[in-house]
């Protein structure tokens, strides 16, 4: 012990006025490696590293594998499904399924219609949710807490509970009789709106106990984009409560001093919001946009509800048409291969989400950034 201490004593090699150069006697390489790699600390680190890597890779596999198998399944020729030796890599590549789905359905039309619907609702939802969340996060006024509670409440009620009354609401859309007033003369105000029967007023169809249904002039908004747009404008569409909650937490993390300095410089509330707060929250807004866009894109529930018998072709119709394509394609194959059926269904799904995959590839960077900057706190 003592001897070692003496050995390791630093030796002053050179001493000038300003500098002192000291050289320690170095421990031999073997000793150093031993100390570094044979410690429990290092062992723990390695074990943990491997464990983490295996876990992450494994779960990535679980996430990615279905997509991989769907894609390979979609380009397999029918005979590959009967062949037991073919499992994941197709032997005979064919794009018949894609072609069939493309021609059987008005894919392009469905694509443009759904794009229009999703972009408009997602943009509206993003901005409205930003507005509401900013108001809730940064302004103290009476009823703030109550409104936040209402937001959470609107998130909590399942849409299935409200589906009947919601569809009824938009079949006979009227707010405080305004629509009836505007529509009273039977003048077509906006070409998009469709009427319910004008001659209804003459017929006595009103049940005694339901006086709210008197207006025969209310508008039928179903089979148009309006129900979803109206819901988006009010921040009441699918999962908007979640967006408002997320954005509210984000805005709470933005320091007040930022706005205060803007106010002192003479900027108004709106201008501060648009020129200072919004640019700050772009990653978070893209996150919300990504969610609302893709959830609207693959939505089935609201489309079924608001487009009961429509000529507007949407992505949902492609999904519903897949069985007809399926039976057509199955006619060309002599045997009934259930794997082929699955592959056809999956291809339909792939074609529906293909635009989302492309979008995700470009936007995931912002999604990750949005998470990193959000700094949620739950108080």
């Amino acid at each position: 012990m003592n001897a070692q201490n003496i050995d390791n004593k630093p030796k002053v090699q050179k001493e000038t006025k300003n500098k002192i150069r000291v050289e320690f006697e170095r421990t031999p390489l073997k000793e150093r490696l031993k100390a570094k790699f044979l410690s429990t600390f290092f062992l723990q680190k390695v074990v943990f590293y491997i464990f983490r890597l295996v876990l992450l890779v494994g779960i990535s596999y679980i996430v990615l594998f279905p997509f991989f198998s769907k894609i390979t399944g979609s380009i397999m020729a029918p005979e590959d499904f009967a062949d037991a030796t073919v499992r994941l890599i197709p032997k005979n590549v064919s794009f018949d399924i894609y072609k069939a789905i493309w021609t059987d359905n008005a894919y392009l039309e469905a694509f443009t219609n759904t794009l229009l619907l999703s972009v408009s609702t997602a943009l509206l939802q993003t901005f409205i949710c930003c507005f509401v969340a900013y108001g809730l996060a940064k302004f103290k006024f009476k009823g703030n807490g109550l409104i936040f509670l209402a937001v959470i409440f609107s998130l909590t009620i399942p849409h299935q509970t409200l589906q009947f009354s919601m569809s009824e609401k938009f079949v006979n859309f009227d707010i405080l009789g305004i629509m009836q007033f505007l529509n009273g003369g039977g003048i077509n105000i906006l070409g998009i709106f469709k009427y319910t029967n004008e001659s209804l007023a003459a017929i006595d169809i009103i049940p005694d106990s339901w006086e709210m249904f008197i207006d025969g002039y209310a508008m039928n908004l179903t089979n148009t984009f309006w129900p979803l747009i109206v819901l988006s404008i009010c921040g009441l569409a699918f999962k908007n409560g979640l967006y408002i909650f997320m954005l509210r937490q984000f805005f709470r993390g933005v320091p007040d001093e930022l706005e205060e300095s803007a106010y002192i410089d003479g900027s108004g509330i709106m201008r501060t919001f648009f020129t200072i707060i919004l640019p700050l929250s772009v990653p978070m807004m893209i996150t919300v946009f990504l969610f609302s866009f893709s959830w609207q894109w693959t939505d089935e529930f609201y489309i079924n509800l608001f487009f009961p018998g429509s000529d507007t072709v949407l992505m949902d119709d492609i999904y519903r048409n897949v069985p007809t394509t399926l039976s057509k394609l199955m006619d060309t194959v002599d045997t009934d291969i259930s794997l082929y059926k699955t592959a056809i269904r999956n291809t339909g799904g792939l074609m529906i989400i293909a635009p989302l995959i492309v979008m995700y590839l470009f936007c995931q960077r912002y999604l990750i950034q949005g998470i990193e900057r959000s700094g949620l706190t739950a108080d």
Partner: protein
Amino acid sequence: MTTDVKIKAPKKRRNASLDKRKARGGWLFVLPFVLGFVLIYIPIIIDSIRYSFSLASYADVAGAPMNFEFVGWANYSNALFEDANFVQNLVKGLTDMVMDIPMILIFSLFMAVLLNQKMAGRAVFRAIFFIPVILSTGLMESIEASNTLGQNMGGADGIDDGSGQSTAGDLVSTLDLQQMFDGMAVGQGLVSFVTNAINNIFDIVNRSGVQMLIFLAGLQSISPAIYESVQIDGASAWETFWKITFPMISPMILVNAVYTIIDSFTTNSNVVMNFIQNIYGQSMEGKGISSAMAWMYFLVVLAIIGIVAAIMSAYVFYQRKD
């Protein structure tokens, strides 16, 4: 003295007006939601409650509003006592939920902690883990469901379509796991819980995306200074997690628990919701009954949320900010 007062007076007034202006600004920001909530959402809710107490029938003229006849509690008693499947489905749906929620919470917290560490390829893993949030919803869920159905009927195996069973079947066989656990002296319930979790791993990964996001964001907000000081004090990673990360993230656990409950009972794959959806589509009488069922289910779930929130909020730790 007099000059002092003169200076003070306008200053006070300006302060008050700024507060007022800010309050008005706040109202302006939340106005779209408030208007929509009061004018559209509340009427919809009231209508829905009314419908659950009434019998709907088509109007005499096409395009006219439907007729509604008030029938009192008939829909509710029909759902509870006459429908053979509703109560059964309700119980099944609730037990599923109780099983799923801890699993989703544990998994998403665990993954969030992993994804929060500095390592090579972190961005790639994050991007992969959030794929299901974007892509496995709505229509895709329905396609998966119809695949599983077709597979069960066709008895096909081989190609994995990500319908859950086959994925896990490829990775580990449930039987092996059960054998492994049989040797240990743990309860049968725990064994089935764990094997269930592994069988449903695809489902769980799919459903814990938003939760992971919320947890990750919560983890980001923990000050690095705390970790630094703990490290200096010589705490191990295990201790750091339980003494620092867990309490600091506990508010997020509450938020996520509530969100998971809400999410799991509003998704399309939910047993009860599917059942209600079927009833809704079947007939006109079904519309009133389905409204009644949905309201009952909602109240039960609301009660569960209340209980969970009450229990958890007793243990939640809020950092005091000064």
